[in-house]
């Protein structure tokens, strides 16, 4: 991920605000000695108001603790930074980072503080805990909201094309795409210029894979099932090929980027955009009631469900010198006060995984309401990366190849199987 000047500007501003707050505190009447702890978080611009609101609320509740925010890039650059900081013992007192497969790569048993017995865990859904656990030890608190992987769609475009409701099968979706194309609008936006976005049609199809082949997860982890030779899993790659063959993607798919995708589905320049629901916060305010979100349909109209992504986690490195204060901050993130502050700072972005979570206020964006309804309906299944540490690093490139017609779905799936073997060997997993 590249750091653009705007982000850097926002970051500098945030640091200024934080340090202003710190100086203001100095002027206050003498009180118990304050501890300053540091927090490393990712630098997504839309998240900065959330961080600031949470820090303000936490400091108000804990007047003796000051929190200093540092931001890091997301994506692979961020992964390497986090690993380097942990390996050299220079990690901040608290850091927020992905859960699931990426957490396992941090070697938690060696680098992170065990939070299994902390009181706040009683407030965390049990369904979340495996995403931040290795073995029986839980190393994190949930940070942020649950997300869904699926397809954003523009309701005005759907209406113009005469589409009622949302497609219940992939075949229906392709028919709807045809109707949208007849209007002269790109039916499906693809943004391979940010190659990670190309993975969505494959990753978000996992509910359907699991529904038609429940043994795939276990067999895949045991090096028995392969994408290329499991019909249900191969279909995920087939989706990319279908869109390309039918010519339903935008002409500049190979160079368009994530912000283009969000902007185009918001403005109605394209009908649909496969993406994770964290993109909702990037939809312009005037389009928030116009852009809906649906689960990626499979082949069974009677079983349409959502592939879900767990929230990230908040972790404490073993190298911290302020363990008690750090634990307080992590517990705060998993409390109602913490989620309330997040909603106040950045709006309601989806359901939390805590028991006493903040309720959705009225007037949330349509896509968020759709997401909440899908999760409430209960037909959900976690993305593969939360069930298995095995995720080939070349999936973005391979999905671009399939999505742009360079290789067939079958060949792409076979390439990915090979990529996965390389990753499992590098992780030192047995049986590969």
């Amino acid at each position, binding site marked *: 991920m590249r750091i653009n000047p705007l982000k850097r500007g926002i970051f500098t501003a945030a640091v200024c605000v934080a340090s202003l707050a710190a100086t203001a505190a100095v002027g206050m009447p003498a009180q118990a000695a304050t501890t300053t702890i540091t927090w490393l978080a990712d630098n997504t611009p839309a998240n900065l108001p959330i961080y600031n609101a949470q820090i303000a609320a936490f400091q108000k509740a804990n007047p003796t603790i000051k929190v200093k925010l540092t931001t890091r890039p997301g994506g*692979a650059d961020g992964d390497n930074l986090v690993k380097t900081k942990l390996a050299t013992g220079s990690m901040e007192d608290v850091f927020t980072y992905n859960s699931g497969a990426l957490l396992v790569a941090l*070697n938690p048993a060696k680098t992170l503080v065990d939070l299994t017995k902390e009181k706040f865990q009683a407030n965390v859904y049990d369904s979340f805990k495996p995403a931040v656990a290795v073995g029986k030890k839980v190393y994190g608190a949930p940070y942020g909201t649950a997300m869904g992987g699926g397809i954003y769609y523009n309701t005005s475009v759907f209406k113009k094309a005469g589409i009622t409701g949302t497609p219940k099968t992939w075949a229906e979706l392709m028919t709807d795409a045809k109707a949208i194309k007849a209007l002269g609008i790109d039916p499906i936006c693809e943004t391979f210029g940010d190659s990670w976005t190309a993975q969505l049609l494959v990753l978000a199809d996992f509910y359907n894979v699991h529904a038609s082949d429940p043994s795939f997860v276990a067999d895949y982890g045991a090096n028995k099932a392969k994408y290329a030779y499991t019909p249900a899993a191969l279909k995920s790659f087939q989706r990319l090929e279908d869109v390309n063959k039918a010519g339903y993607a935008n002409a500049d798919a*190979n*160079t368009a980027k994530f912000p283009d995708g969000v902007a185009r589905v918001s403005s109605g320049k394209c009908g649909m955009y496969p993406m994770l629901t964290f993109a909702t916060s990037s939809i312009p305010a005037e389009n928030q009631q116009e852009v809906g979100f649906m689960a990626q349909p499979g082949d069974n109209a009677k079983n349409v469900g959502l592939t879900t992504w767990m929230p990230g986690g908040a972790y404490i490195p073993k190298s911290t010198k302020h363990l008690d204060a750090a634990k307080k901050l992590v517990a705060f993130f998993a409390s109602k006060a913490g989620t309330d502050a997040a909603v106040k700072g950045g709006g309601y972005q989806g359901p939390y995984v805590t028991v006493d979570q903040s309720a959705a206020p009225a007037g949330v964006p349509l896509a968020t309401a759709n997401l909440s309804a899908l999760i409430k309906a209960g037909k959900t299944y976690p993305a593969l990366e939360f069930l298995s540490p095995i995720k080939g690093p*070349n999936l973005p490139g391979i999905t671009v190849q399939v999505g742009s017609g360079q290789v067939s779905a079958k060949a792409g799936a076979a390439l990915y199987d090979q*990529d996965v073997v*390389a990753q499992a060997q590098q992780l030192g997993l047995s049986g590969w």
Partner: protein
Amino acid sequence: MANAKKSLAKASLRNYPLWFTLPLGLIFVVLFVLPTLTSFYYAMQRWTLFDTTWIGFDNYALFFKDPFLLGGVVHTFIYAFLTSGLKVVIGMFFGVVLMSNIKLRGLLRNIVFFPVLVSTIGVGLTFQELLKPNAGILDQALHVFGIPAAGLLGDVNTALYAVIAVDVWKGVGLATVIYIAGMAAIPSEYYEAAKMDGVTAFQNFRHIILPLLRPATNTVIVLSLIGGLRSFDLIWSMTGGGPGFASDVLASLIYKKYEAGFYGLSTAGNVIMFGLILILIVPLNRFLSKREVEL
């Protein structure tokens, strides 16, 4: 005579005591030799930054099994030889033109050299915008020539060549300066003698400038070939190796392995690239310097 010259050169070298090289030598050892040696060690490890496990040559085996390696190597060679060749031809042309008595010579020299000074990542991102399909100025202008609808960077067949063109644009200034310096070193007696014989401008170029520029040409070839073989920043900022793997070169494939957290594997890749460049450049350098003409 050659012997006399050699011993003269040796004597002049000895004028400087060896410890003069100590400060730079120390930096070279600490920042180059030591990391190079440790990389041979880490290439044999499964290395997660937190711990290492000895796995012998498994990393090398895995690296050679990479399905995208062959494409990456082919792209690397296309990239290196094409940029190197173009820099020689265009650089020499600019050099000759900018040595002649034309108007605004100083300004033109600056314009040709300017891109060399700009940050490569900056150049990459700028051209990404300029070539944006249906939006970038350059893309719009190129439509006259019927470029693909996906844009130069978005089309699998043109992406690599678009990056090559930008690399040449950015790097040709350095080649030009080397040629200008090379030409300035040619004694004017040659031209005067040729003038007496009544040679044409072309003969002048073909039989005086071209042979006497050979040291400059060799420098340009070797420098741009090494640069091309290990090129990474421009490709990464313009295409990220894409679309798919269509413009991936060795260095970007290795970086992707580093990104994925395969530190041992990417180190093995770097050792292989180090060897490959060595195998190519050392004989080439020897071959080229044999053909140099002494002034």
